[in-house]
Structures are given as C-alpha cells and as structure tokens.
C-alpha cells in the first residue's frame, strides 16, 4: 500500500473529493495546514509594526490506497487540484508497511477497502 499525501488549495478540496469519489476512493483524511513555497505571501500591519507572512492556508489530504491504485489516484488529484497558478501544491507518495482497520482488526489491503 502507499500513502498519498497531497497538499492542495483549500478552494479545490471539493473538486478533489468528488474526483476521488468517482474512483471509488471513499476513505480520506484531511488536515488544514499552512504552506510556504514559490507562492508569494503578504504583509500585515498592526499599529505600525509590519509582519511578512508567507505561510498560506493549504489543505493536506491523506489517502492510503493499494499500490496498483496509486497512479489513478494521483492523476485524479492532480487533475482536480490544478489551476495552473503558482501555489497549486504537491503530492508526495510514501510506502506503507501495514494498515489496520480498528473496528474489525482487518489488516492489509482489506483494511482500506
């Protein structure tokens, strides 16, 4: 199994979710994060003191899928999350040694089906 970690724009989450739905991927975990990268940030002022903020709101998606699904899932996310503007985000794939469904104790692929 692989753990697909996608960092996307908050505004694209809906599209990405439905794209995954179509693939039949129901199980996902979502985390709201802040990200810095090429995308430029903005300046804030509080009573004259200036703050440079280059960490911008992003959403991190975690989806664990069977190895063979990796490509289709990655492409689905890519397609749904892309705007073409700087700041679209990244997808990172790592391998998973084991997965367990807590409710049943099932392990391996069946745990995430």
């Amino acid at each position, binding site marked *: 199994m692989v753990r697909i970690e996608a960092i996307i724009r*908050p*505004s694209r989450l*809906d599209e990405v979710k439905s794209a995954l739905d179509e693939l039949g991927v129901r199980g996902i975990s979502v985390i*709201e994060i*802040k990200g810095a990268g090429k995308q430029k940030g*903005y*300046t*804030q*002022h*509080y009573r004259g003191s200036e*703050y440079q*903020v*280059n*960490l*911008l*709101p992003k959403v991190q998606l975690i989806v664990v899928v069977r190895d063979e699904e990796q490509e289709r899932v990655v492409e689905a996310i890519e397609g749904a999350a892309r705007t073409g503007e700087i700041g679209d985000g990244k997808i990172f794939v790592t391998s998973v040694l084991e997965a367990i469904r807590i409710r049943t104790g099932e392990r391996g692929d069946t745990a995430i089906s």
Partner: protein
Amino acid sequence: MKLRLWRPALTALALISLSFTAFAQAPSTAPTGPATAPAASAPAAPAMSTAPVESAAAPAAAAPAAPTIDKGDTAWMIVASALVMLMTPGLAFFYGGLARSKNILSTLMMSFVALGIISVQWALWGYSVAFGADKGGFIGDPMQYAFLNGVGADPNPSFGTTIPHTIFMMFQMTFAIITPALISGAVVERMKFSAYCLFILLWATFVYDPLAHMVWGLGFIGTKLHALDFAGGTVVHISSGVSALVLAFMLGKRKGHGSEELRPHNLPMVLTGVALLWFGWFGFNAGSELAADGVAGQAFINTHIATAAAAMSWIMIEWFKYKKPSALGFGSGAVAGLVAITPACGFVDVKGALIIGLLVSPICFAAIQMKNKLNKYDDALDVFGIHGCGGMFGAVATGLFATDKVNSAITDSKLLGAQNGLFYGGGAHQVIVQIEAVIITAVLAIVGTLVIGKLVGLVTGGLRTSTDDEENGLDVTEHGEVGYSSDTSTVPAFAGVD
C-alpha cells in the same frame, strides 16, 4: 385601482428629477430658517406626542423652547440614541459571523466605517439636507445647519420639542449611520473598501438624506402624501434593501459562488449581533416617539412581540421543512420581525404586531428561496431578502393595521392626517398611500444607486477587488490584517478561526 396606479408612477418620476434639481438650487436659495416651518411641519414630525401641537400653538417657539425641555424625555432620548448607535456594531457582528473568516474584518469594517464617515457627513451637511427648512418638499436647506450651527440646547421647534436639539440631531444621526451599513451585507467579500466608502458617502447625501427629509423632515411624502412610517420602514429598510439588490447586480457574484460552499464562519457571533440589534432596536422604534410616553410604550412592546413572533415563525418553517429549527433561522426571523414592525410599531395594537411578526418570516424565507432558485444575483447576506422584502411588507402592513385607538395622531388632521388601516375601518386608502411610498422609495433607491454606483466605479477603477484578492480574503488584501491569529507568530490560526 388601475387609475390609481398612475399616481405612484408619476410621483416617482417627478421625484427623481425634482429632487436633484431642488438640491442643485438649494445652496443658492437663502435659508428660510425653521421659524416658518412649525405649523406646517408639526404634522410630519416623527414625534407623535402632543409636543408638535404645543409648537404649532406657538410658532415662534424656537427661543422660548428651552424651558419646555422635559428631563424624562431627555433622559430617554439620550439613551435611545446610544442604543441605536450600538445597533451598527450589532449589525457588524450579525454580518461578520455570516461571512467567511478570511473576510471577517472587511465585513466588520463596512459597518464600523459608517460610524466614522456618516457621523462626520451628518455634522457637516447631512443633518441640514434632511432636517433643514423644506425646499420644494424634496430636501432640506443644506446650509441651514451646516457644521451643526444653531443646533444647541434649545429644542428644534418642529421635532422633539421637549428635548435639546443636539439630542434630536444625534438620534437622527444614528439612523443615518446604520442605513448605508445595511447595504454592505449584499456586497461583502468582493467590494473594494475604497469604493464602498465613497459609495456610502454619496448614497447618504443623495439618497438617504433627501428621503429622510421627504418622509420625516416635512417633505412631501409625510406632509402631502401622508404616508405612515413610524421608525423607518421606507427610509431605512426599503431604501437600503433595494439599493443592496441593485449593487449586488452591479458587482456580480462572489468567486466560488455556486461551486464552493460559502458558509457562515461564526454563528455565535451572528447571535451576538442579533442580541445587540434586538436591544438597540428598542431605542430605534420606541425612541422614534421622541418622548417617554404611552405611544413609546406601545411601540416598545409591539417591537418585542413582533420580533419574538417572527423568530418563532421562521424556525417553525425550518422545523416543518427540514426537521431542524436553526439558530441562524431564529436570528434571521428576529431581524425580519424587527424590520417589519419598524414602520408600524407606534401605530398598531398587539394583535397587529403579532400578525405582522408571524407573516414576515414566511415572506422573507420565500424571497431567499426565490433568490437561490433564480440564482441570478449574489445578495450575499440577504439584505434585500430580509430588509427589502421585510420592509416593504411592514410598510404595507402599516396600512392594514394602523389604528388611532393606539395613536390618535394618525387621523388627527393637524398631526399626521392619515387614515386608519384597512382592517381598522380606514378603507383601502392608507394601503394605497403606503404602496405609493414604497414605490417612490424603491425608485429613488434604484436610480440613486445606479448613478452613484457607476460614478464610484469610474473613480475607483471598478467596484470590485481582483479575484486573487478575493481568494486570499479581503482582510489581508484590503486591510492588511487577519481576524484571528495563532500564537505561532507566522502561522495565522487555522480555518474557522482565520
């Protein structure tokens, strides 16, 4: 009826053309001073108390008015003015909680800045335009009280003749402040702050102030048409609600409207706003009597009961439709009830208030459903749906339920010279008058907003921020701040709080 309908149409057109010409001339004409006004004016004075009669009895009451100051009335009207002032922050929170967190400050600022801009405008010329000596029934002499010259401890001979002129002016100012702020609900999350500021300054000057004059300031709607508007159904709610609709059309929809879900970010904040609005509205409605008397008492309880009824009737609709009565529904209903009872509060009895409250919610709810169906415009926080529609219903309902049993001034020809409501033996007359007043107000608001909106767009290079700014949120792009910050210095707090 057919024939009848010509009247409003014509009046409306006449109004538009005249009001501007009248205004153009205004400065040139020499101020006639208020001394000439009283007799004529008394009828239109929002003060339904016996005060105007006194002043009518003594036309030159200006000078000797001082001794007639009543400390009870004065105490009440200072507090009433403070209560209405508090409504604008209340509105800010009502709207702010409904916006997304990345726009919370820009939404709050659209209301708060009205406290800044309009207060100064009112002191410099606004009050004169609204309550200066009548100029052809459309505006007041803009010079008469410029810089509030002559607004002192002595009462205004025509309005609030038992309280210092300063306090009457202040009470009216708080109305002038919240009205443009109401419009902001339709344009939040996308309108340029600069454009907004300029817009409300002009709108207050060319739409609100003349309208206030026409209805309350001895203008033709009050003194000739004899339309009834106790605390501002036409002047405040219809004018702002209709203007909001027009401006929403001019601005276009928010980015993500339809695709993204645009949910309220903080409903407890919305209820904070509802609480302050409800509380402050007692000053708005009962204070419009300009005295601590029986009519004020009636306006007070009508306001509360209609509001409660409307809040309940809104959640009942939700209960039947979704099995889920919501907090937002309760708040929306309460505001709708406050809006609808505003023009009627000092003219109707408790039964009338109850019925107005119960009926306004279905009407506003339907209006909002309609908006969602049509999906033609993005009245973000439903200013038209609640204030526009609720205000129109209230204005018309006043023509149905008004009764001189509650307020003898209604049918007193020396005072308001109007008729009882349709259900109180007055026949259809007053209903039609009310409808005419609604149409005149709507036309003025539409034309005024279109003209001013275009103008402002030219000055500020468009009314709307860039889509990038919209995506990042106006707090950061227009105001250089975020509403909610994390202690981790560079990490603004997480969604739902940033």
